[in-house]
């Protein structure tokens, strides 16, 4: 069980690293303006997450994210339905849109349904970002940071639960396409 818990995120990062190996980055070509990626790290938690990034300027971009899923037994999330919608601003301080290292801030709304109770929350997440898009358009990115999460909801008896704050790590390893 322990090994299984640890193998998931490690495997996703290894996949990401492997995807970043090709040297033929899309430098010198017409730069991409958009990238669509799937967060493979979220799949470990039984959640599908799609992220769409749009370039605003040479070094800045917005990324919208939408996630939903039933949770996974491996991650200890069963009998749940998770949903998330978020928007992220990022600035590439080294490199650029097709390959760069940047800082990002993401704001996301969270929804957790686990009959009979439900919770909703808001997360503020500063992150470091590395993204690489090779000449074929294949794209890999890694986001690592923390998240300040405020959550409240209704418990099983229908009573309102008090607002709670938590701080946690946040990681996204995503594969997709730039165009």
């Amino acid at each position, binding site marked *: *069980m*322990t*090994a299984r*818990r*640890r193998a998931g*995120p*490690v495997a996703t*990062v*290894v996949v*990401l*690293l492997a995807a*970043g*190996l090709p*040297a033929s*980055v899309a430098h010198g070509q017409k730069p991409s303006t958009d990238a669509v990626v799937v967060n493979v790290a979220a799949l470990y938690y039984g959640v599908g997450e799609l992220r769409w990034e749009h370039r605003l300027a040479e070094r800045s971009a917005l990324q919208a994210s939408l996630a939903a899923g039933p949770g996974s037994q491996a991650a*200890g999330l069963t009998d749940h339905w998770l949903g998330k919608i978020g928007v992220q601003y990022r600035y590439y*301080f*080294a*490199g650029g849109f097709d*390959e*760069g*290292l940047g800082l990002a801030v993401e704001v996301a709304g969270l929804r957790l349904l686990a009959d009979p109770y439900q919770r909703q929350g808001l997360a503020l997440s500063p*992150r*470091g*970002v*590395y993204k*690489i898009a090779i000449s074929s358009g294949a794209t890999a990115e*890694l986001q*690592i*940071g*923390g*998240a300040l999460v405020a959550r409240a909801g209704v418990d099983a008896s229908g009573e309102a639960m008090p607002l709670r704050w938590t*701080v*946690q*790590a*946040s*990681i996204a390893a995503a594969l997709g396409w730039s165009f």
Partner: protein
Amino acid sequence: MRIPAAASVILPAVLLMGLVLARPASADHHEPAAAVAEPRQTWIGLTAGLPVPVGGILGLQVHRRLGAGDFAEVGISSAAVLTGAYLTWGHRVSDNGYTLLGVDAELFVFAGDDVRTASLAGIHGGYGWEWFLGPTRTTLAVCVGFPWLGGLRLGVAL
């Protein structure tokens, strides 16, 4: 998977020996390492942390040049109860020296009657040195982390 205790001692010793052997070669050239010949873009290698800078004792790291003296390092590392991933920005400031600053995320797994996990994010920074032994890039970095203590990070990459 548990890491044999001997590996955490032997590997750093081997890496240190490599660093010592690489020292004369780096003294021969006076240009920044990035400017010597056509620089490689990607290096992949192993790291060893003492005691556990950014995530663990042993790790796998990809080093990627971003031009103008900047580079990115993406890595995963692990100790017995701690697995971490990190993203580091490096910037060359001298012949073989560079500053580094990054973010990391760690997953703790407490094994026992009831397996418990916890995750936490951190930041790290420091200063590193790199030497080239033919096709091999060896590095030694001093890391200071928050909330983690940091330490030395040794690396060998091809």
